[in-house]
């Protein structure tokens, strides 16, 4: 088709092909309008709405491009979102291509409550949950426009027409028009009605949602063609590495600058508050020059002298102090007095160490500042493209609109992929003024990591004569108020009189969101504590949970399902035991059972099998949902059995995969069986749901096997032997 027709010189004709309604827009175009061109601040003809951009583009050859606003870091949502829109539009899936949307948070972003327009951050497993409704409506509106145009062409009332997989059909006249054909003459209707819930497809009419559709990104991820941020390059590009503060907060002084400046291929050295950047012609040259640097670190860093193993002692004092009050998160009824007066009182403490993300693609960014310094372009895989863009703009002193940010595939995110790498790349490029790629080495990625905070959790509970819980107190101590209280509410158990409180410590080290955030440590403590109580009361832990769920049929069904899958109640093979746990995340629920064995001599725990039942509302991509559950379980086992970051003298002690081991194939369960519960409720979260099961389920199986409880993650062989010897 003729692109000129749609070009910038003809705003009127472009307007004709655009529609903005309800804050969501799309373009039905004859030529190819890139969504970026639609960002011009021109009023839309139809609604006066300023939000001009596209969710979907149809070209005359029938190709349908759907714009993906979310990061693709392995969770598969780029396929899910496109499928949701294509479903309501009744598009032919084979004609769909998916592209990243531009960074326009006002249009493509989402508020935390799910309202369109807000940050573009991909986090908290909110993508499918949040975009489900708006994308269904956008799809239904696109379908309306196609029907409207076909009806006009045929001179028929719109109500008599149907759509089927990329065609508008006139059943009476036996005619049809493909979406591509319609795109070549389409005009925008004077108005598009609001789409109500009853105008959308019924679940039984779905042919994409809930079906197994292969993930869009998988073929190119098997051939090496998929481009991650680290794979992007520009002509005349230079490479950068940074030596960062070994103790967070200290500042560098380079002692041998003249010597380092003679390094092969060196382009420049860049001094920053937190480190010194080395820019060279190749990445290996940058690494070599980095190694040569002698840096004196100084300044009054809060983390100076910090020892994370010792820190448990201060956290003990903090959490046991009855005169202290932290931030109250849950307070229903009167927990303290009901525990005081209980028939029996339980007290336990659980510990979790700092954890590193270990996303397989180390952090990186590519940046190019225009020769006149008035604009810049950047490429990186990130969970928050708008935050990156704004950070770059700030460093360069540019307006945000002058920075074009291209999100790329991310080699894992898990909460880590935000902000600091783009910021650093901008600082380096600002001085060097060449196209530049910054790469963090694995060592950098670990030693200057931002970690899941350590925690000490003190649990207290009281039970009545029959073993029913009468009060529940959960105190969490650790360095991050924002990150440590997720999952403290347990709306799937009936427990009267609950109190949860967070008490903050100030070690001065970097912390960050880490897959499942607070749920990992908190569900471990809750579920382990429940089993310890049941064990003491000599009640089967499954029965004990059933009691607490007797008035909650949705959750009870899930608990029963996982128990049935695992054959709970049967005796396991000799030397093996089952453990169970329950969790929620972002409106979804899951129940899981593990089967473990223990090498008594070495203290090594092995998880042989895992079963989990999932209730996540309507599941858009069932096979991908299962993959997400599997991945969370594997990462969960890894974190529970072997991962730990420790600090000494304020410095991270680990540096690569030899001392921060993550689970390998040999330690992976031989089977993971996932069962998705049917549901007609809107979709809820999946990516972070299964991971929090593992801490509780594994220690509960260990309790069953040995009569002893593991209360400090990770359950390394050394810690297991120590517990066994007590």
């Amino acid at each position, binding site marked *: 088709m003729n692109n000129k027709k749609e070009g910038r010189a003809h705003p009127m004709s472009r307007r004709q092909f655009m529609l903005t309604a309800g804050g969501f827009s799309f373009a039905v175009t004859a030529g190819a309008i890139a969504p970026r061109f639609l960002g011009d601040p021109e009023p839309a003809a139809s609604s006066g709405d300023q939000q001009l951009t596209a969710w979907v583009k149809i070209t005359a050859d029938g190709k349908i491009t759907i714009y993906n606003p979310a990061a693709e*870091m*392995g*969770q*598969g949502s780029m396929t899910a979102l496109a499928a949701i829109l294509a479903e309501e539009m009744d598009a032919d899936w084979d004609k769909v291509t998916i592209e990243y949307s531009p960074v326009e948070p006002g249009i493509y972003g989402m508020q935390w409550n799910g309202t369109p327009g807000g940050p573009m951050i991909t986090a908290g497993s909110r993508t499918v949950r949040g975009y489900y409704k708006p994308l269904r409506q956008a799809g239904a509106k696109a379908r309306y426009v196609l029907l409207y145009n076909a009806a006009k062409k045929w001179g028929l009332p719109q109500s008599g027409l149907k759509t089927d997989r990329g065609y508008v059909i006139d059943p009476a006249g036996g005619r049809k028009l493909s979406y591509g054909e319609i795109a070549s003459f389409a005009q925008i209707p004077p108005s598009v009605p609001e789409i109500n819930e009853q105008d959308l497809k019924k679940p039984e009419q779905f042919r994409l949602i809930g079906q197994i559709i*292969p*993930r869009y*990104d*998988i073929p190119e*991820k*098997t*051939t*090496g*063609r*998929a*481009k*991650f941020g*680290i*794979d992007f*390059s520009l002509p005349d590009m230079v*490479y950068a590495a940074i030596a960062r503060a070994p103790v967070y907060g200290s500042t560098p002084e380079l002692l041998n600058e003249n010597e380092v400046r003679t390094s*092969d*291929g060196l382009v420049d050295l860049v001094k920053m508050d937190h480190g010194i950047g080395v820019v060279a012609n*190749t*990445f*290996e*040259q940058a690494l070599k020059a980095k190694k040569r640097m002698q840096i004196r670190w100084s300044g009054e860093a809060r983390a100076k002298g910090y020892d994370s193993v010792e820190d448990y002692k201060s956290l003990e004092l903090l959490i046991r102090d009855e005169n202290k009050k932290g931030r109250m998160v849950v307070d229903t009824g009167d927990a303290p007095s009901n525990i005081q007066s209980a028939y029996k009182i339980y007290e336990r403490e659980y510990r979790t160490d700092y954890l590193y993300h*270990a*996303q*397989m*693609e*180390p952090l990186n960014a590519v940046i190019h500042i225009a020769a006149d310094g008035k604009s810049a372009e950047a490429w990186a895989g990130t969970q928050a493209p708008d935050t990156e863009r704004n950070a770059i703009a700030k460093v360069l002193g540019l307006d945000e609109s002058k920075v074009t940010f291209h999100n790329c*595939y*991310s*080699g*894992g*995110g898990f909460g880590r992929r935000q902000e600091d790498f783009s910021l650093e790349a901008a600082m380096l490029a600002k001085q060097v003024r060449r196209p530049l790629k910054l*790469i963090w*080495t*694995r060592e950098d990625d670990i030693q200057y990591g931002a970690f899941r905070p350590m925690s000490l959790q003190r649990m207290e509970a009281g039970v009545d004569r029959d073993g029913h819980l009468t009060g529940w107190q959960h105190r969490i101590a650790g360095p991050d108020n924002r990150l440590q209280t997720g999952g403290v509410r347990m709306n799937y158990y009936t427990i009267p009189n609950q109190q949860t409180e967070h008490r903050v410590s100030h070690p001065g080290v970097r912390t960050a969101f880490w897959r499942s955030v607070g749920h990992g440590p908190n569900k471990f403590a809750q579920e382990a504590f429940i089993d310890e109580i049941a064990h003491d009361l000599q009640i089967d832990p499954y029965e004990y949970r059933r009691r607490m769920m007797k008035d909650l049929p949705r959750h009870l069904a899930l608990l029963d399902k996982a128990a049935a899958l695992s054959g709970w109640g049967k005796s396991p093979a000799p030397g093996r035991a089952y453990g169970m746990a329950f969790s929620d995340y972002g409106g979804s629920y899951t129940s899981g059972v593990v089967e473990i064995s223990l090498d008594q001599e070495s203290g090594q725990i092995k998880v042989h099998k895992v079963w989990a039942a999932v209730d996540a509302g309507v599941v858009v991509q069932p096979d*991908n949902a299962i*993959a*997400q559950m*599997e*991945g*969370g*379980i*594997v*990462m969960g086992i*890894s974190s529970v059995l072997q991962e730990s970051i420790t600090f000494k003298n304020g410095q991270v002690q680990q540096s*690569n*995969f*030899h001392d921060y081991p*993550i*689970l*390998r*194939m*040999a330690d*992976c*369960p031989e089977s*993971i069986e996932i069962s998705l519960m049917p549901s007609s409720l809107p979709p809820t979260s999946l990516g972070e749901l299964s991971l929090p099961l593992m801490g509780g389920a594994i220690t509960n199986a260990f309790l069953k096997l040995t009569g002893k409880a593991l209360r400090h993650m990770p359950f390394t062989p050394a810690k297991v032997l120590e517990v066994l010897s007590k």
Partner: protein
Amino acid sequence: MKTSFKLNGKMVQVETAPDATLLWTLRDALQLTGTKYGCGASLCGACTVHLDGIAVRSCMTPVSSVAGRSVTTIEGLAGEELHPLQKAWIEEQVPQCGYCQSGQIMQAAALLKANPHPDRELIISYMNGVLCRCGTYTRILKAIEKVSKSGKQ
């Protein structure tokens, strides 16, 4: 320093520093970015390529050591059609983020070349050096077993 070697079936010559590694030479000088950097220390397997048909970690392989030899990367694994492992990877929907998968596939391809019908134990011990943070191991195993049983490699 100039080094000539066969890369995905064609002779190439590169000019690098004497101690340059194969990994960064492939990625930056030769623009074959399918081979990934994960650890730089033979700990993760993301950088796995074939050297004369054997799986090696390109991050610890000096480019000087491949002179006159034959290197295959993920980009050169498929012939006219995708390699049976690549097909199985798609059928089993193995990749999540995908970052480790070039290394996984190259490692598995070298195994099947040497031993078309490995048992499960051998597969696991051979694949154990390649990390996957997304936790796709059960699917990787399924995909390899599928190919080894189909007799297609």
